[in-house]
């Protein structure tokens, strides 16, 4: 499964999300934006603040779309990600599980695409 990116993945209406990860000391949350996705991965943009993840570390996506809340476990694919010209960073994440929660999340993203 190729990582999501704006050429290989499906671009979507940018969706504001929160990525939760474990820093060296505590759980932290960072606002981010989902830019594109495939069925197995998605491309996430961070502004100046981004998660300090090591290969093998996991993160969780917590997001509410319409009335539905989602929690999906993520594995970073291309650390440290791509530094953008405005100082942001784009990181691709793979979905760890192919379960109902991931499927419902992808369906919710799909629905937003159609609305757009």
């Amino acid at each position: 499964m190729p990582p999501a990116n704006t050429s290989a993945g499906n671009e979507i209406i940018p969706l504001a999300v929160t990525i939760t990860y474990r820093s060296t000391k505590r759980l932290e949350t960072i606002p981010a934006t989902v830019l594109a996705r495939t069925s197995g991965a998605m491309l996430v943009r961070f502004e100046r603040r981004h998660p300090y993840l090591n290969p093998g570390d996991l993160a969780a996506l917590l997001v509410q779309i319409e009335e539905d809340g989602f929690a999906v476990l993520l594995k970073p694919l291309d650390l440290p990600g791509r530094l953008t010209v405005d100082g942001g960073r784009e990181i691709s994440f793979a979905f760890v599980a192919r379960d109902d929660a991931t499927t419902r999340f992808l369906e919710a993203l799909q629905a937003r695409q159609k609305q757009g």
Partner: protein
Amino acid sequence: MTNQGLAVQELREVRELRGSLVSVVAIGNPMGSFPFWVNGNANGTLVLLPDGVRARTFAESLTADDPLLVSVIDVFGRLQAQTAVQSYDPELTELRVVDPGYLHVLHRRGAFRLDLELGLEIASLRDGRVVLAAGDSLDISNTGLAAHVVGGVEIGAPVAVSMKLPDGPLLAVGAVVGHSGERTRVQFTQLTPADRKRLALYLRRVEIALAAQGIG
């Protein structure tokens, strides 16, 4: 002891335990549990060999017909059978008990909850925003946990849970499935296969350590 009504997959034959270490408790005796090796079973008798001085002293203290519980922890969970003392031979250091034939699953491993206090952090969604809270686990299984969470978490809320395992944090996502008093129950919905195994091994190690201390 009767095993009537239990499905075949909930049983394990005692003869399969030959050479295994089992835990023996005298029912109603506060001395705790003691390790014994299963030497074999035949003609309605199960022969157990005490492992160590404490177990031997325990065996010497028993009298005929004393009720015992024999248990073992394996991949299925905790298996147990009730039996009774036949005799103890101090020369051969053999404890002979009534062969129960089978051990039945007392706690199925996937759902077995271990009372265990671990520091944890929970991130949950509340009105579309992520709220962080700290707490302590009250019990943990391979499929979820109960915790006292400062500030509480709404039922149905998707959560990310970071558990402080001795070998490093473990991140899981799940859903809050209920509250009971100060207990918040979380069911894990996503764990990596590696972390699922890591959690199971950790819980098993703790379970064995508690069993060796005669707790649980």
